[in-house]
């Protein structure tokens, strides 16, 4: 029986400073994250002791140096928020990792709250820059010059499901799901075949099928085996193949469908062999075909389009769900997935209020038509970039949303609440509430631990190896009975 899909996303944003020829990305990122303030703040470390990004899911440990910054640098680069998120500097990009959630709708809310948190700190940071300079952030994955940055998804999986099975059943799904969750891109890069417009931001960057890397020779399936939870019971599937999405509908569909397919893999419900002859070539072929008409080669010798491959997964999903009780959200995801595939088969442009790559394409084509521009016009490239701009008054996605040209999934009030409120049904609740209630006594945090510095006692680390424990139902009473961190530590020991 499939385990609950606890999940979250980690989004790296593009960053630049307009009007500053000496723009330095790293110091700009540090300024940015330190411009976001919550009242709980003491100096809290990110607890790197708990991390192991070099463990490989295929069962080995890769050689390499683990990143451990000194204390001052650690505090300057890492912020843990009272909504349970981590907001930090990763290499030369600001990154927002949303708190753990248990369903796709909640994921939309928290990923969107992240956009608003970055925008709030961007405004603050910009006000500190010299006159004429303005910091800008983009929720995209490429500078269109061969440099890419990630939008990763994480899904909790049962350790008993072998990694080999995950790879086999997931590869055709990952190569083709972009038809309903790509963010769209003008042109190609990284030695890709030239094209006017493609479905995915990231497809040009995948060079291998399965590997541990995330920054070079990117694999379609990443093998990082760092569960941030009890590693005897769980794995965390670290998905690097996706694009950063702005459309709520797209985020919802991407997350809901992926979580469902992973549950099906755990339950042995993927019975068709859809293995592709060359997944790395196929992911690019699919991306370069916004008509959604081109077929790719399967190992069996058959040729199917991306939409047909998705329809095969949908058919298996319908059969899987028919035999069991499923949540209302799963039913809704199935219905939306089915509708999206039907539209893609007829005319992808039917989805111009739902799916990012179609929304962007429709907008650009309207503009090109009125202005008689071609795909290589600088304004067209600007439209592509500005679709992802986080400024509510300038970002073209937000403009479409304001004009009623984006189908919403959640309400603005829910997003606003999530800026300062953790999800209630995962350990993110305990993390966020500890920061809110006992912030000055918190010494360090990681996904699966929180440690306190109380009086002169040695640091107390509380482990949270179960992502579903530490929920409101589990710990609210304990927290209410613990006015101080010292009380909490004592009550936990009792």
């Amino acid at each position, binding site marked *: 029986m499939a385990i609950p899909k606890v999940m979250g996303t980690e989004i*790296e944003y*593009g960053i*630049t400073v*307009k009007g500053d020829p000496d723009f330095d*990305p790293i110091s700009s990122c540090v300024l940015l994250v330190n411009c976001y303030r919550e009242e709980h703040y003491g100096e809290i470390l990110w607890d790197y002791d708990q991390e192991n990004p070099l463990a490989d899911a295929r069962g080995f440990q890769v050689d390499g140096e683990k990143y451990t910054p000194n204390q001052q640098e650690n505090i300057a680069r890492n912020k843990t928020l009272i909504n349970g998120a981590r907001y930090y500097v*990763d*290499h*030369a*990009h600001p990154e927002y990792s949303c708190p753990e959630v248990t369903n796709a709708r909640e994921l939309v809310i928290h990923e969107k709250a992240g956009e*608003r948190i970055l*925008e*709030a700190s961007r*405004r*603050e940071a*910009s*006000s500190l*820059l010299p*006159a*004429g300079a*303005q910091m800008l952030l*983009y929720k995209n994955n*490429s*500078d269109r010059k061969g*440099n*890419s*940055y*990630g939008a990763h998804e994480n899904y909790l999986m049962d350790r008993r499901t072998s990694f080999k099975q995950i790879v086999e059943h997931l590869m055709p799904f990952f190569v083709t799901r972009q038809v309903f969750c790509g963010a769209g891109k003008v042109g190609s890069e990284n030695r890709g075949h030239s094209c006017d417009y493609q479905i995915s931001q990231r497809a040009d960057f995948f060079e291998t099928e399965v590997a541990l890397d995330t*920054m*070079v020779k990117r694999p379609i399936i990443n093998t990082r085996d760092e569960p941030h939870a009890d590693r005897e019971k769980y794995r965390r599937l670290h998905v*690097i193949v996706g694009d950063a999405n702005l459309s709520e509908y797209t985020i919802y569909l991407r997350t809901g469908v992926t979580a469902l397919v992973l549950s099906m893999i755990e339950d042995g419900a993927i019975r068709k062999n859809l293995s592709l002859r060359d997944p790395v070539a196929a992911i690019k072929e699919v991306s370069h075909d916004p008509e959604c008409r081109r077929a790719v080669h399967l190992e069996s010798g058959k040729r199917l389009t991306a939409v047909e491959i998705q329809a095969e997964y949908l058919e298996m999903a319908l059969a899987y769900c028919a035999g069991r009780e499923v949540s209302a959200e799963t039913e809704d995801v199935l219905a939306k997935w089915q509708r999206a595939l039907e539209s893609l088969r007829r*005319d992808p*442009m039917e989805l111009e*209020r739902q799916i990012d790559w179609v929304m962007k394409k429709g*907008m650009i084509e*309207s503009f090109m038509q*009125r*202005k008689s521009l071609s795909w290589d016009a*600088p*304004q067209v*490239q*600007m*439209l592509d970039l*500005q679709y992802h701009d986080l400024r*509510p*008054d*300038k970002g*073209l996605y*937000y*403009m479409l*949303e*304001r*004009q*009623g*040209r984006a189908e*919403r999934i959640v*309400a*603005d009030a829910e*997003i*606003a609440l999530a*800026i300062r409120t953790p999800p209630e049904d995962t350990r993110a609740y305990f993390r966020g509430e500890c920061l809110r209630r006992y912030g000055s006594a918190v010494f360090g945090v990681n996904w699966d631990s929180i440690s306190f510095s109380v009086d002169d006692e040695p640091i107390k680390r509380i482990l949270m190896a179960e992502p579903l424990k530490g929920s409101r139902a589990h710990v609210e009473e304990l927290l209410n009975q613990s006015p101080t961190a010292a009380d909490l530590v004592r009550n936990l020991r009792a």
Partner: protein
Amino acid sequence: MKVFRTTSPGREVAGDPFPIYGAAESTQKKTPKRGGGDGEDKDAAGSQKLAKRGKELKEEMDALVDEIDEVLEENAEEFVKNYVQRGGQ
């Protein structure tokens, strides 16, 4: 109606950290399906309706392009050229 006006270009003032984003969900317009209505409107009234719908569509598209014109970054060529990132994950 525009919810936002740009502040003076270049320098931003950190005011309300969480400005209101889009309009309320209820303002969503239904974008018509492309080529909608074919086969239904065979009489004169029908084709008149179709013409009216076509005109509305054109107006909607004009409104979209006009708003893009207002917010699109100036000096697109230089802006796009200068947008260079270090590779991330």
